[in-house]
């Protein structure tokens, strides 16, 4: 093996603190090291060329670069490796800038010592690196979009325009969603239907979109690049191609029903046009209420249809297709105000919800109001929002503004209307919102701070009595109104549960679907290839929904345009020689990525997420993780602790996502911490096994820290539970061997806790100093009967 | 250890108790603490006797000294036991390590009522003793009762106006006041009970027909002769008669019991 070792000065960043010559000298005689070189700027073109030429000229197998953090220049050197014809995974970096020069500049000697050891740890690891390849899967250009509200439509159009094949599945007979019901949009007061209908019309026109209305996702299997979809499509019994929407069928239909589209304030027939702007623009037959789909039972509509578009002889069909990515845009459900009976919704005829008011405003503008609302109107905010009593503690984000909008529109329509908005807090945070709120005030809308407690109906007049406290004035209000509007909030659509189960998507505590990262991956999910658009991720208004839809389309395009999706081969693998087929790992993989193949376990690389938590469960050391093998970690541990001499040694397992990056941030901030610490990078804290921990103590670590990511932001939500379990096992073993369990500490951290990081390291260094080294006899006992200690008697 | 000469002083202080007893004959001794001070006393004395032995004089609150009147109720603790004990001082023997107080008296407010005008109604208890509504059913009163009465139960019965139950459950009450001392709701249970018994006796209790008959007989002078005879007997003779009579009574009761 020929390892080329390069030490970077980083233009003085390193060399002003670390004595480079000393480092070079200490490495010269390391086993397997072909030579050691230094350079001012290894990442420069010149520096890279030196390495490139050395690889060619000296036939180097592997490279170790002591420089900055691998987070920083790692990709540069990996590309260089590939260019030189080597696997990018045969290179390791020793982070002597962020972890030594920048954090121990107060003690050049200690910094130099640490730099030597960090480089030796990197060499120790690289010896066992394998020439792995990037792991890739092919991705085509097909996307399934579930839900064709404004989010689904926007995403579909964006994708289709970029040449992606889109399957747009909508459960209703028409696309358009809730937006098609609205009067105008806040704060600009554009006509909602007017701005939406062109977009709706574009959908069936687009050759790249296959629109599947009245369809329901029945099953999803497979993974990124290879999702297999089954959709059940209900027949509408009216051929959309033929239907001229003349309405003759509805005229003769004997069944009259409440029209949900008009908030049940108007009626429709069993055969009906879903909305005036419906797309497909065709009548549909509501089989639930139709007298029988049978000419013998009724058949009137079929008789009158001049276009011959009605056919009763249709059945539900099942459509199957494959896609590469999925966008979930199933939207929201309005809160059903009947769940708060104290407001009499559904019981008192003059208590309506916000959506009904939308329809009243639209119908009034058309000169045919659905309901007389009178002059004195009260709005009650936060119905179905910010209310723990009904399990909806969150703010629905749109109700303040739609109430203000409706009040403005009502005032415009009839300025002498007396409108009161009873609110808890007015949340007008969007662009132009506060100004729009102010417009309402200028229009004479009165805002009263207090949530209405209950409504009563005057039995004689039907007027509604509102009871509330004016919390600013500390006086009670009890007044009659002609109409009371409940500003109902929104919740995830009813299909969410089903969708989340089918796609294995996590839900946040409010019931909406959980995004991969609240800040940086707001439209991704933890399942590769599945994205979220619109209110299914959380309450939002139309502009936010549209931006998010375009965002999710862009994220999907980004993935699909590569044609291939590359992963680091951070994957678990099984040593079939060692595996005894006990199956413990199968039960414990949260991703169901391990199964039994004959007598041994097998890892399905499509599902493995590389957390490494399975390894702790293998009593035979048969499971391992590429890039972070047991051997690699053990060699790093040994290098870090064996030659510590009289110094205390704090070993830190830092997870890739948070703790390792935090250590870099501490370096960037030039935060000083104890130079007796040695950081070992792991993909997740649950990669650390009880055995590795005991080995660390066995070889001389005085204390061991495991720093990981908080569960709520971790890509591996099960991780903390797993590592806590391992830590508990080790704590017990330590106690049995009369070693203080304080020496081992696991915690989570976030990447901005710079002071806390230093604090923890220093605390555990002090502890290591106070407790002193663990006596050799105790350390030697630690590894005896390890299997029994960790796994109980069952496996020995 | 108390010095011998002090013991003599103590002995002198209360001759009535150890009169005729030679200290040499006292085999067992106990150390007790009265108001925090240690005393060594003969172990077979009652609390009251022991306190007198230790030099305390009872002018009031010592009552009948025979376990009937309830005047000498007291509280104490035993060494090593957290429980506050209650007892009649004339009926309870001292124990080694007993912590005693001066015999307490339970001050009580007793409402004035005229039994001829009080209505025999359920709410009469609450009318005169509204504080019984404060009872939290903690049962401390029952635990405190030296007569082992179900005190809480009769207070609860009073709350729901059950005169009969109050009277029956409280029949053996000696009005010692220990329940009232311990009650966190500041109820004076024994006065409530007394009210219950009086009212029940007057209005609820159905008078026995034989009683009426006997009263008439007495009034008519049927027993005058017998009374005269008994009054003329000497003390010892009277005792004999009483014993004889008791024996017959118990025989009769046993027979009746078998039925």
């Amino acid at each position, binding site marked *: 093996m020929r390892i080329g070792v390069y030490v970077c000065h980083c233009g003085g960043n390193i060399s002003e603190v670390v004595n480079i010559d000393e480092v070079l000298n200490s490495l010269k005689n390391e086993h397997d090291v072909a030579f050691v070189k230094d350079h001012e700027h290894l990442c420069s073109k010149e520096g890279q060329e030196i390495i490139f030429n050395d690889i060619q000229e000296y036939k180097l197998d592997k490279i170790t670069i002591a420089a900055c953090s691998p987070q920083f220049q790692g990709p540069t050197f990996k590309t260089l490796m590939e260019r030189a014809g080597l696997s990018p995974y045969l290179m390791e970096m020793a982070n002597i800038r962020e972890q030594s020069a920048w954090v121990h500049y107060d003690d050049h000697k200690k910094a130099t010592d640490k730099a030597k050891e960090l480089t030796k740890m990197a060499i120790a690891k690289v010896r066992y690196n394998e020439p792995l390849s990037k792991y890739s899967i092919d991705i085509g250009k097909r996307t399934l979009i579930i839900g064709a509200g404004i989010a689904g439509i926007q995403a579909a159009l964006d994708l289709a325009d970029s040449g992606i094949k889109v399957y747009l599945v909508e459960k209703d007979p028409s696309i358009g969603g809730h937006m098609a019901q609205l009067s105008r949009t806040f704060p600009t007061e554009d006509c909602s239907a007017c701005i939406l209908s062109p977009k709706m019309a574009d959908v069936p026109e687009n050759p790249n979109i296959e629109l599947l209305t009245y369809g329901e996702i029945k099953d999803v299997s497979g993974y990124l690049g290879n999702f297999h979809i089954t959709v059940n499509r209900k027949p509408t019994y009216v051929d959309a191609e033929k239907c001229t929407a003349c309405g003759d069928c509805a005229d003769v239909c004997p069944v009259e029903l409440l029209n949900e589209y008009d908030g049940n304030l108007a009626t429709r027939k069993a055969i009906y046009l879903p909305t005036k702007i419906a797309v497909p623009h065709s009548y549909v037959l509501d089989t639930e209420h139709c007298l029988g789909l049978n000419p013998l039972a009724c058949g009137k509509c079929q008789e009158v249809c001049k276009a011959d578009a009605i056919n009763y002889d249709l059945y539900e069909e099942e459509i199957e297709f494959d896609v590469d990515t999925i966008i979930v845009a199933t939207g929201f459900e309005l809160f059903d105000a009947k769940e*708060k*009976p104290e407001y009499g919704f559904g019981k008192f005829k003059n208590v309506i919800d916000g959506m009904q008011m939308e329809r009243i405003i639209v119908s009034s503008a058309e000169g045919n109001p659905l309901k007389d609302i009178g002059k004195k109107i009260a709005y009650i905010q936060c119905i179905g929002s910010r209310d723990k009593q009904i399990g909806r503690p969150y703010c629905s984000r749109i109700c303040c503004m739609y109430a203000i909008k409706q009040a403005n529109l009502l005032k415009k329509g009839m300025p002498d209307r007396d409108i009161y908005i009873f609110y808890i807090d007015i949340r007008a945070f969007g662009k132009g919102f506060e100004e729009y709120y102010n417009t309402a005030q200028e229009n004479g809308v009165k805002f009263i701070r207090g949530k209405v407690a209950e409504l*009563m109906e005057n039995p004689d007049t039907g007027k509604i009595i509102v009871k509330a406290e004016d919390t600013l004035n500390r006086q009670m209000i009890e007044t009659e109104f002609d109409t009371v509007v409940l500003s109902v909030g929104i919740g995830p659509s009813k299909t969410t549960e089903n969708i989340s189960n089918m796609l294995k998507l996590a839900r946040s505590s409010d019931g909406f679907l959980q995004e991969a990262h609240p800040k940086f991956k707001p439209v991704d999910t933890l399942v590769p290839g599945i994205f979220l658009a619109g209110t299914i991720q959380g309450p939002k208004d139309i502009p936010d929904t549209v931006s998010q839809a375009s965002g999710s389309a862009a994220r999907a395009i980004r993935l699909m345009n590569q044609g291939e999706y590359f992963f680091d081969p951070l994957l678990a693998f099984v040593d079939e020689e060692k595996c005894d087929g006990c199956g413990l790992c199968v039960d414990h993989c949260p991703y169901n990525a391990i199964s039994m193949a004959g007598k041994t376990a097998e890892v399905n690389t499509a599902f493995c997420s590389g957390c490494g938590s399975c390894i702790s469960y293998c009593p035979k050391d048969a499971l391992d993780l590429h890039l972070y093998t047991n051997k690699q970690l053990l060699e790093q541990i040994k290098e870090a602790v064996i030659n510590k001499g009289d110094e205390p040694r704090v070993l830190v397992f830092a997870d890739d996502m948070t703790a390792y990056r935090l250590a870099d941030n501490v370096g960037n901030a030039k935060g000083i911490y104890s130079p007796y610490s040695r950081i070992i990078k792991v993909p997740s804290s649950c990669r650390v096994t009880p055995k590795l921990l005991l080995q660390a103590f066995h070889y001389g670590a005085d204390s061991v820290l495991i720093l990981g990511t908080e569960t709520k932001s971790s890509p591996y939500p099960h991780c903390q539970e797993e590592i806590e379990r391992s830590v508990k096992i080790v704590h017990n073993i330590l106690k049995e061997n009369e070693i203080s369990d304080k020496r081992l500490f696991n915690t989570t951290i976030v990447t901005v806790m710079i002071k806390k990081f230093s604090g923890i390291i220093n605390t555990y260094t002090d502890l290591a100093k106070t407790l002193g080294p663990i006596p050799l006899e105790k350390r030697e006992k630690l590894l005896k009967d390890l299997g029994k200690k960790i796994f109980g008697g069952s496996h020995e | 250890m108390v010095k011998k000469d002090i013991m003599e002083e103590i002995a002198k202080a209360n001759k009535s108790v150890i009169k005729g007893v030679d200290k040499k004959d006292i085999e067992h001794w106990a150390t007790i603490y009265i108001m925090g001070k240690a005393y060594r006393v003969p172990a077979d004395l009652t609390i009251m006797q022991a306190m007198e032995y230790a030099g305390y004089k009872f002018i009031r609150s010592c009552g009948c000294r025979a376990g009937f009147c309830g005047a000498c109720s007291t509280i104490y603790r035993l060494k090593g036991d957290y429980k506050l004990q209650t007892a009649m001082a004339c009926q309870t023997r001292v124990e080694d390590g007993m912590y005693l107080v001066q015999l307490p008296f339970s001050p009580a407010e007793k409402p004035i009522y005229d039994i001829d005008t009080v209505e025999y109604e359920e709410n009469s208890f609450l009318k005169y003793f509204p504080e019984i509504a404060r009872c939290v*059913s*903690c049962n401390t009163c029952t635990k405190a009762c030296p007569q082992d009465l179900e005190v809480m*139960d009769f207070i609860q019965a009073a709350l729901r*106006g*059950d005169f009969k139950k109050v009277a029956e459950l409280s029949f053996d009450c000696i009005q010692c006041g220990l329940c009232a001392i311990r009650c966190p709701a500041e109820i004076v249970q024994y006065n409530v009970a007394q009210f219950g018994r009086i009212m029940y006796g007057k209005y609820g209790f159905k008078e026995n027909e034989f009683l009426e008959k006997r009263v008439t007989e007495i009034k008519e002078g049927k027993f005058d002769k017998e009374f005269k005879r008994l009054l003329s007997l000497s003390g010892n003779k009277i005792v004999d008669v009483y014993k004889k009579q008791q024996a017959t009574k118990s025989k009769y009761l046993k027979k009746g019991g078998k039925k």
Partner: protein
Amino acid sequence: MKIPYYPGCTLKTKAKNFERSSIAVAEMLGVELVELPKWNCCGVVHSLTSDDLIHHLAPIRNLVRVQEMNEEKLVEDEFRLVTLCSMCYNTLKRSNLRFIENYEEREKINSIMEREEDYKGNVKVVHFLEILRDIGYDKISDKIKKPLDKLKIAVYYGCNLLRPKEVGIDDPENPDILETLFESLGAEVTLFPYKKMCCGSYQTVLDKESVADLTYNILSNAKEHHAEIVVTSCPLCAFNLDNRQEIVRSKHSEFKAIPVVYFSQLMALAFGLNIEICGFDSNYISALPLLKKKGYLKNK
């Protein structure tokens, strides 16, 4: 069916008619309400401070009696405890829930009780109305001798049957258990928006005037909706709504008295039980004139 039954103080004094009629009605339906052989105050009003245990001794002690009844075979494997009084129901049930959930506190209570056996947390406190619901309204309808179809009844829940949520026998904002019961008895149940409004409860001791104001509001609301008689299940509500009408009438001369009775009284009437069992003579505002007018009683 034999079920342990907890009466409570007022059922033995001011609300005897409630108890008598309920026991009779239960009997008609094949349920024997077996009074706890020994019981104490339910501990009303439920103590609300987190550190207070002593006020929970009373309710828990009563629950222990249910265990004892089972041991003594007075009932057979029946750990439900039925109450009639809404306040007792609320207090017993709420304490029960607290000590079922909180093992440590239960142990503490057990250690303070000392003389009783330990409470094991296995008793279920139910209200008689729940038993009726379980029996089934069809079966109740079957027993009707005199349907209540001539009466316009307002059903009044008050607080303790409904709130807090975990204790309530029905939806706290939209209850209908009493409506369903009386509809099954053939009655016309009127709308009554104030049916769950508080009557002022124990404030009647300190401030009868304001309780009378509430009584006025509540009963006026019932009358506005054309009720002729109000039913309730709480002796304290009954007292406030019934007896406090005297003050109401002194303040509002136009106010016409309206009888307030226990649900069981009207049930007994519907079941054709003896008029003494119905106990209409002990309500403050007599329901007898109304019932006579409607032909439910013969004129004497």
